[in-house]
């Protein structure tokens, strides 16, 4: 892939894993990764950005990409964990 497409792909992988680990995101099929404004993953990104004090864009912007690569506590950020 051209570099930026590959980076984008890596970013999508990162954010998906992060949301699965800490925001109870469950990807059921490829369609879940479509980035429409009200798609499941966009909603989850907004939820995560709100919790971590980021600008709530629903997009994988650089601040968001930077923060999800910081060391963190392994415990989820939202309930739904028992």
């Amino acid at each position, binding site marked *: 892939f051209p570099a930026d497409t590959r980076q984008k792909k890596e970013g999508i992988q990162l954010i998906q894993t992060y949301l699965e680990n800490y925001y109870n995101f469950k990807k059921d099929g490829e369609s879940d990764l479509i980035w429409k404004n009200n798609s499941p993953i966009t909603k989850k990104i907004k939820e995560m950005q709100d919790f971590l004090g980021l600008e709530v864009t629903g997009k994988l912007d650089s601040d968001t990409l930077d923060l999800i690569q910081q*060391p*963190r*506590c*392994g415990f989820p*950020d939202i309930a739904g964990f028992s």
Partner: protein
Amino acid sequence: TFAGEPKWTKKVLTYRILNYTPDLHPADVNAAIKKAFNVWSSVTPLKFVKEENDLADIMISFAVRGHNDFIPFDGPGGAVAHAYAPGTGFGGDAHFDEDETWTISTEGTNLFYVALHEFGHSLGLFHSKDPEALMYPIYRKFDPSVFPLHQDDINGIQHLYGHTPITYSDQRESSEVKEPDEPKEPALADTCSPDLTFDAVTTFRGEIMFFKDKYFWRKHPSLREVNVVLISSFWPRLPPGVDAAYEVPEKDETVLFKGNEFWVVRGDTILPGYPQKIYALGFPKDVTKIDAAFYNRNKGKIYFFIVDKFWSYNKRSQSMDRKPRQIREAFPGINGKIDAVFQHNDFFYFFHGRKQFEFDPGKKRVTRLLKTNFWFPC
């Protein structure tokens, strides 16, 4: 807090370190873990006891990747540790990712700071949305000289367990210290004892005076030596066991309180007309003694602390508050009765039993938790 607010019902909890990271000396791991528990003890009634062999409430271990629970670690970076809410089995346990480089400095992943966060979970705290709070999920570089708990963390843990109470032993200790009416001669306390407590502390002509029973220690903040002096050798008419003291530097006067009386001294001279009753200052009759006092030069106000409330006296308008206020409202993080307080540079130092809290009036929060003998060359 977690859903359903799980918390421990007992106040003394046990912890056991099951294995050690090869990144640090075991003694450093023990110290970091103990220090983390001490911070939570400093703002709650909780006490923590290290268990060597048996099961403990909080089992602490280092592991990599899958480690027999539901959340495998992910190699270096990413998740560095996790812990479980209070409960049986895994409840309360804390797991640290051995794929991290554990340190006791601000480089790498600082064990004390991560453990402090994880034990917040072990005690029932969930993640905080406040980026300044310890319980915020992302680890950042931290300033080891600043008290690590933010007001948000303290509010959360005290919602679950209440404030630092005065335990009977503290009360007995402070009542012994405050009312040495028994004929026994209190021995001169050891200034380096971890159990050191004070009756009163004040600045005094550039020095700091630490009162205890019938003695006081004089210490210049920037010099090492400490002089111990019999109170009666300075002010023969003053009874032992000062309750509170404060200095008004611009008048070269120091005010000493005992019971419902007070004296004003200049150097080793008691000014004429003293003692007077504290009611002359504007206190109501139901106030029978002052626990601590200090003069805030910046505000021109004198603060008097009585149990968990305080009064302030405005020197300019010569007026006392009409009614007392809660200490913790004006001084967040300072809870319950205090033994002594004084101002040094731009900070207030509150003494409560064996603890000393450095308070930043600008930030309106506790910035350091110190030992009472912090000022002595121990």
